């Protein structure tokens, strides 16, 4: 397997709070990795490392053989659960913004013919995510599902190699999720993306991914819960998707996460 | 009624009230006439007159001009119980760069509009054949006059002490006209509501008695003047400098002579004319004599509408030593 993304004894801590430790993995280009794990176990933190908004504490995180850039850049797109789109721009402008940033260094804004071209480019992607009808709407006029479609289109206009999804459907009605799944799978194939997607829904993880990572702590210190971090406890290949196997795996993981949840259930505020 | 309140504000000629209050002289005289007198200091001069006019106080220190335009014009019949002093240089017109009064033409003059400063300016302009139309009057609060003078925009001010002395310390400031050139026209008095005074002569006696006791202490003892200086926010030297341009009537007989002279009536006529020209006598006023002013030498204006009175009888008692 050629390693596009490589994790090598990767660890991350915030001061004394060890969040991730000893992550070792290789991911090939074009894989669809889904990440599950209890709340607060460090899934989002891992995505932040990939994104470059947080830096590695020890070990290595390589992309195409080089340490990952320490800042967000267009080669790694992201869709968050919320706030991924710009409320003050309409749908087309939201998508075209990525083009404008490149072509207009000082104003970040295009005019006349070049603007038209950028918008045309945006329209293409909007068709791909099924938003052609909503081109002139503002995000607040869109449903949650449509906003996430928009966020996807926005990310894809930069033709990223890696797409990071942090619970992208967590705030959507279950009824809408199915459509979104089809959409993401379609885009993944069409654009040849490498996707890392965090989800709380184990079944979603099984359904979408070619590979599923379970994050969990293997060591616990009851007196200092922050002392040890999570690591990847399961790394399942989902290429075959055998139904019976899947169900068994789900049950096992569920039981395990469930047990862990009881002791580490975090404070909500 | 045996409880009275009087108010005063910080000014060289009214600091005796602070001294009398602090040392108990006023209480002593009040006790003598079996009444009670509250002495209240008010920072803002105009506010003190307004409070008096609105009925919160029975007596208040003010200039004769303000007595005419505020309480008298507001229907509060007032009597000048004590004439304490007149300004003899305490109010002045100061120019920044020019040397003579005539240069004021065309300048912006900062002063407290409609106050005695305004009156002084009008009299000054008259003296060199100019009128108010030849300058622009800018209303400026007295507390900020010194700071205002330090700014580049301000070239002419008309104001009173201690501000005059502060401003004159600035190099280049020239006094081109002052109240010494119109002696006896800016008169500082204690006004009492006529109605209250008539009903309670004891109030008049106690206040006048106390006043002249303070006056004699003030005239003879430098430490008294030091006290007053400090209470007004400066020191003895600063206060003495202000006194130098104030014609204090330390003795009742001096005050009497001033009040009884026919010149007082002429002065009040000037003041009334000025006030009328500036619309200060109220909308109902048809001419400068709309409000009658009674002086020992006679009545100026409408004797059917006397609202301002100069009553020498209490000062006479003091002069006679019968208090």
């Amino acid at each position, binding site marked *: 397997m050629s390693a596009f993304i490589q994790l090598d004894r990767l660890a991350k801590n915030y001061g004394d709070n060890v969040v991730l430790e000893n992550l070792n993995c290789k991911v090939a280009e074009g894989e669809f990795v889904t990440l599950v794990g209890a709340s607060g176990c460090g899934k989002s933190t891992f995505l932040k490392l990939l*994104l470059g908004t947080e830096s590695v504490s020890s070990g290595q995180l390589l992309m195409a053989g080089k340490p990952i850039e320490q*800042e*967000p*850049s*267009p080669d*790694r*797109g992201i869709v968050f659960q*919320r*706030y991924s*789109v*710009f*409320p*003050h721009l309409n749908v087309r402008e939201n998508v075209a*913004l*990525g083009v404008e*940033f*490149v072509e207009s*260094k*000082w*104003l*970040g*804004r295009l005019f006349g013919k070049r603007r038209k071209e950028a918008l045309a480019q945006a329209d293409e992607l909007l068709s791909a995510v099924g938003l052609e009808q909503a081109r002139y709407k*503002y*995000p*607040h006029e869109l449903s949650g599902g449509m906003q996430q479609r928009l*966020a996807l289109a*926005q990310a894809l*206009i*930069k033709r*990223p190699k890696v797409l990071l999804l942090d619970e992208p459907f967590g705030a959507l009605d279950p009824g809408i999720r199915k459509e979104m799944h089809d959409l993401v799978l379609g885009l993944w194939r069409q654009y040849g993306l490498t996707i890392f997607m965090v989800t709380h829904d184990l079944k979603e993880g099984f359904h979408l991914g070619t590979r599923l990572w379970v994050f969990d702590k293997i060591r616990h210190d009851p007196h200092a819960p922050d002392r040890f971090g999570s690591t990847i406890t399961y790394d399942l290949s989902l290429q075959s998707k055998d139904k019976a196997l899947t169900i068994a795996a789900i049950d096992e993981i569920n039981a395990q996460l469930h047990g862990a949840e009881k002791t580490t259930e975090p404070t909500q505020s | 009624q045996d409880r009275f309140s009087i108010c005063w504000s910080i000014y060289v000629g009214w600091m005796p009230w602070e001294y009398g209050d602090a040392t108990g002289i006023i209480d002593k005289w009040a006790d003598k006439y079996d009444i009670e007198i509250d002495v209240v200091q008010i920072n803002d001069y*105009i506010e003190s007159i307004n409070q008096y*006019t*609105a009925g919160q106080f029975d007596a208040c220190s003010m200039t004769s001009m303000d007595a005419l*335009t*505020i309480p008298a*014009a*507001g*229907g*509060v019949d007032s009597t000048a119980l004590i004439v304490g002093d007149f300004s003899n240089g305490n109010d002045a017109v100061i120019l920044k760069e020019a040397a003579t009064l005539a240069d004021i033409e065309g300048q912006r003059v*900062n002063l407290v*509009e*409609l*106050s005695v400063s305004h009156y002084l300016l009008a009299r000054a302009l008259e003296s060199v054949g100019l009128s108010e139309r030849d300058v*622009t009057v*800018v*209303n*400026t*609060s007295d507390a*900020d006059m*010194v*700071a*205002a003078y*330090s*700014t*580049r*925009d*301000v070239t002419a001010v008309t104001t009173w002490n201690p501000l005059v002395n502060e401003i004159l310390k600035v190099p280049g400031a020239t006094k081109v006209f002052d109240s010494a050139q119109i002696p006896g026209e800016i008169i500082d008095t204690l006004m009492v509501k006529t109605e209250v005074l008539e009903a309670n002569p004891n109030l008049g006696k106690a206040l006048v008695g106390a006043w002249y006791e303070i006056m004699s202490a003030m005239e003879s003892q430098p430490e008294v003047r030091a006290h007053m200086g400090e209470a007004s926010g400066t020191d003895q030297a600063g206060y003495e400098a202000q006194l130098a341009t104030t014609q204090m009537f330390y003795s009742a007989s001096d005050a009497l002579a001033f009040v009884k002279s026919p010149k007082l009536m002429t002065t009040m006529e000037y003041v009334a004319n000025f006030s009328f020209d500036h*619309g*200060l006598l*109220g909308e109902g006023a048809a001419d400068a004599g709309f409000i009658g002013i009674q002086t020992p030498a006679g009545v100026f204006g409408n004797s059917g509408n006397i609202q301002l009175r100069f009553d020498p009888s209490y000062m006479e008692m003091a002069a006679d030593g019968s208090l």
Partner: protein
Amino acid sequence: MRRLINLQPNRVLKVALGIIPFLLILLAYQIGSDIRKAENEQDKLLPSFSEIAAGINRMAFEPSRRTGDYEFWEDTKSSVKRLSIGIAISATIGLLVGLAAGAIPMIAAPLSPLITAISLIPPMAILPVLFIVFGLGELSKVMLIVIGVSPFLIRDILQRTQELPREQLVKAQTLGGNSWQIILRVILPQIVPRLLDAVRLSLGAAWLFLIAAEAIAATDGLGYRIFLVRRYMSMDIILPYVVWITFLAFTLDWCLLKFSRVVFPWYHAEK
């Protein structure tokens, strides 16, 4: 019987109830005025409604004997002009400084404590210094507003900028935006409606400082007139001026809100 906290007045009742206190105040004034007038016919403290009407007429609809101007309108014009300029300058400063500090942590570090300190200084107390620095002309009146209001605006805009979802800024970076582009195209347009909100909140203070400035040195303006006629207790002029100022303040606030609603519908839908 329904619980008191659940009882909602209907539209008509609500309007009626809203008007009642104002009527009561007018009535109380009328009675108070009558009582004082009975004691002293010349009383100036609580003039009768006809005297107030005469006062308004004199100021607004008859040219001044001295200058030939319609003083009420001249005063309004001057004050509104000063207020508008003052607010415009404050808003510009608030936007630029607040945005820069909010978006760029390296600018916030030195500015933030300074602005906190400045916002705590009561501007009235340092008037003399202001005069010396800004003179006594129109500039000083405008500057008192600016100094009184802009620290608040800067702090507010700084905070609002920092409150923008971090996710948006990250997203913009993944779209290839550099700092300047992100500030220009992502942060600035979202902050402008928030600036309007902040300006609305600071209007009260702006009026306060305008009136204080006009009380100190001026030749016209609503605050000037109030403090001038205070010299002879012309409440028949002061009271209508106060009502007029209140009305102007309300109108200005309302216009800003309407403007914001029309120009930034996405902002108001979001809230």
